[in-house]
C-alpha cells in the first residue's frame, strides 16, 4: 500500500517565480493520475517535488502515510521516466536497467531475472548489450520504461514520456502504457500537455494552471462538467465556444436571441457561455436554443466540418461541428445549442455558475 499524498505544496524559486503555489492531491494505489496543463503551469515542478529532486518551500509529501518531504529521491522508492529518457550513454542497456538494483545490493541472480522479465515484456531482450546511442527513439523510450518497471517502486512518475516519439508510434505506445500500468496496481503520476494522452490514460486528471489546481476529476467529468473557464477552454479540440454575454433578468442576451440562465440566487450582469462545437447542431431541434446566423467559414476535417457562424444581431462567433455529409443551403443558417450541454461561468472568477 503506497498512497501518495501532497499537502499544500508550494515551490518558490525567487520572489516572483512560484511555479507551484498551493496544491493538495491524493493518489490511491493503482490510480493513474495525470497532471495536465499548458507550458509553465507548474506540472513538471510538481512532479519533481514528488520525486524529491526539488525541495518544497512549503507543504508535505507523504508516501504510504510516511512523510518523505526531506527524504532524498534515491530513498523514496519511486521511479521516474524522463522526457529525454536520460539513459546513461556509457552503459549498455542491461547496465542501464540494472543500475538502480545494483545500488540496492540485490543479488546478481535476482537482478538478471528481473531484467529478463521486464525486457521480455517490452521486447528488448535482443538489445541488452547495446549502448543507448545504437538504439532508435522508440527503443530508447522502452529502455527508459524498463528501467522504471524493473525497480518495482512504490510510485511511478512519468514526465511527458511520449513527447519525443513520432505520432504513429506515440499512439501505439500510449495503448501499451495503459495496459502495462493497469497491471502494476501502484500510484502512477503522469505529466503531459497533451489532452488526448491525459484523457485516454488516466483514471483522474489534475488540470493545473499558474501553479494552482484547477480541477481534479475523472476524464469524463473534466470534459462534461469543467469546473471553470480555463478547464473548459483547455480541454477539448476544437476548443469550446466561450463567449461573454450581457444578462437581462434571468436571460443572457446573444445578439437577437435570449437564452435562459440556470436558477441562481443573485443574477450577474454578465456571464460566460460555453458550448462545445459538437454540442451545436444544424437546423431547428426541440431540445436546443435555436439561433440564426451568418456562416462565414467552413473548415473541413475529413470526418467532420467545422463551421464558423456569426450570430444575427451580434458580432459574436460560434463554431459548429457537423458530420462531413451534412449539407445546408446558403450562408444564412439556423443552428441549435443543445440546452443540456450549455456551460455557464462567472466573468470575474471564471468559476462554474451551477
Amino acid at each position, binding site marked *: 500500500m503506497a498512497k501518495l499524498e501532497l499537502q499544500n505544496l508550494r515551490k518558490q524559486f525567487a520572489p516572483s517565480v512560484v511555479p507551484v503555489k498551493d496544491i493538495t492531491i491524493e493518489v490511491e494505489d493503482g490510480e493513474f493520475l495525470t497532471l495536465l496543463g499548458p507550458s509553465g503551469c507548474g506540472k513538471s515542478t510538481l512532479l519533481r517535488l514528488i520525486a524529491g*529532486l526539488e525541495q518544497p518551500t512549503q507543504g508535505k509529501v507523504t508516501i504510504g502515510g510516511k512523510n518523505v518531504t526531506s527524504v532524498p529521491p534515491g530513498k523514496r522508492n519511486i521511479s521516474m521516466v524522463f522526457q*529525454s*529518457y536520460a539513459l546513461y*550513454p556509457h552503459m549498455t542497456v542491461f547496465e542501464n536497467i540494472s543500475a538502480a538494483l545494483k545500488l540496492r545490493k540485490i543479488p546478481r541472480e535476482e537482478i538478471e531475472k528481473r531484467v529478463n522479465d521486464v525486457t521480455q515484456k517490452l521486447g528488448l531482450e535482443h538489445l541488452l548489450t547495446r549502448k543507448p546511442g545504437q538504439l532508435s527513439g522508440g527503443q*530508447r523510450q522502452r529502455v527508459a520504461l524498463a528501467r522504471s518497471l524493473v525497480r518495482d517502486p512504490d510510485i511511478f512518475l512519468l514526465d511527458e514520456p511520449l513527447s519525443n516519439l513520432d505520432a504513429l508510434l506515440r499512439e501505439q505506445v500510449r495503448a501499451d502504457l495503459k495496459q502495462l500500468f493497469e497491471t502494476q496496481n501502484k500510484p502512477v503520476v503522469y505529466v503531459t500537455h497533451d489532452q488526448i494522452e491525459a484523457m485516454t490514460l488516466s483514471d483522474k486528471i489534475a488540470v493545473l494552471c499558474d501553479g494552482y489546481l484547477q480541477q481534479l476529476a475523472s476524464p469524463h467529468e473534466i470534459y462534461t462538467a469543467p469546473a471553470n473557464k480555463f478547464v473548459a477552454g483547455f480541454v477539448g479540440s476544437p476548443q469550446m465556444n466561450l463567449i461573454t454575454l450581457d444578462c437581462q433578468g434571468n436571460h443572457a442576451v446573444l445578439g437577437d436571441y435570449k437564452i435562459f440562465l440556470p436558477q441562481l440566487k443573485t443574477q450577474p450582469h454578465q456571464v460566460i457561455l460555453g458550448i462545445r462545437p459538437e454540442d451545436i447542431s444544424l437546423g431547428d431541434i426541440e431540445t436546443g436554443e435555436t439561433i440564426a446566423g451568418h456562416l462565414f467559414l467552413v473548415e473541413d476535417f475529413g470526418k467532420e466540418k467545422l463551421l464558423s457562424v456569426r450570430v444575427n444581431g451580434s458580432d459574436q462567433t460560434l463554431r459548429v461541428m457537423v458530420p462531413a455529409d451534412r449539407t445546408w443551403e446558403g450562408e444564412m443558417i439556423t443552428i441549435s445549442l443543445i440546452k443540456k450541454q450549455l456551460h455557464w461561468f462567472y466573468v470575474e472568477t471564471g468559476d462554474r455558475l451551477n
Partner: protein
Amino acid sequence: MANISKAETTPKQSSRSLKSVFLFLGVFFTVIFCLAPILWQILTSFKTNEAIASIPTIYFPSFNQLTLEHYISLGLPFLQYVLNSAFVSFTSTLFCLAIGAPAAYTLARLRIPGENIILAFVLIVTLFPYVLLFLGLLEVVKFFGLGNNYLALIIPYTAINLPLTILVLRSFFQQLPKDLEDSAKVDGYNTVSMLLNIVLPMTTPALITTGILTFIFAWNEFIFALTFITRENLYTIPVAVAQLGGASVYEIPYGPIAAATIAGTLPLIILVLIFQRRIVQGITAGAVKG
C-alpha cells in the same frame, strides 16, 4: 543532345580539378610552413657536425653525412631529465584536474551567490602574463624552502592552468543534460558515486583535452624550471637542453641540441596522439532525445 551536354560539363570539370589543385597546394604549403622548423631540427639532429656547418646548406644529406652520434651523446642523464619532466607534468596535470573538475562542476551546477564574480576572478587570473610572476614566486619558493624541489614546479604549473581548466570544464558540464543527474539521483546514487559513475565517464573527453593542455604547458615550461631548480639531476628537459654546451664558449653544439629537442618532444607527441584517440566526439550521443 549528348554532345551538347558534354560541351557543357567540360568547363565545369576543369574548374573543379583546378580547385582541387589549389586546395592541395594550399594544404601542402600550410603544412610545410608549420612543420619547417621541426623538420629542420630533425634534419640537423641526424647530420654530422661537418654537414651542419658546411655552406651552402645541405638539405638532402648523403648517407655518410648522416649520424646517430648526437643522440648517443645525450646519454643516460637525458633519460633522467625525461623522467623528471614526466613526473612534474603528470603530477601537475593530475592536481589540476582533481581540483579543477570539482570546482567547475560546482560553478556549473550549484546556484552559488556571486558565481559571476568568482568566474570573473578566474578569468582575470588567466590574463596575467605568468612570466612576470616568477620574481614574486621566487620569494615564495625561498620562504617555504621549496628550491630544488619538484613542488616548486608542480604548484605553480597547477595554479597557472587551473583557470583554463575550470572555464573549459564548466562550459562542458553546463551542456551535459541535467536529466541524467536527476535520473541518477532517482536511481539512488549519492552525490559522490553519481559524479564518479555517471558524470565522470561522460566528461572524459573534456578532461583529456584540458589535461593535455596542462601537460604540454608543464612539459615545455622553461623560466620557472630554470629559476627554481639548480641541481642538475632535477632538471626538466627544456632546462637541460638549454644547458647543453660545447667544449668552449664559442662552440654551439647544434647537433646535440637538435637531438635533445627531438628526443624531448617525442614522448609528448606520442602521449598526445594516444590520448587524442580517446577524445571520442559525441560520447553523450544517445543519452537524451529520440
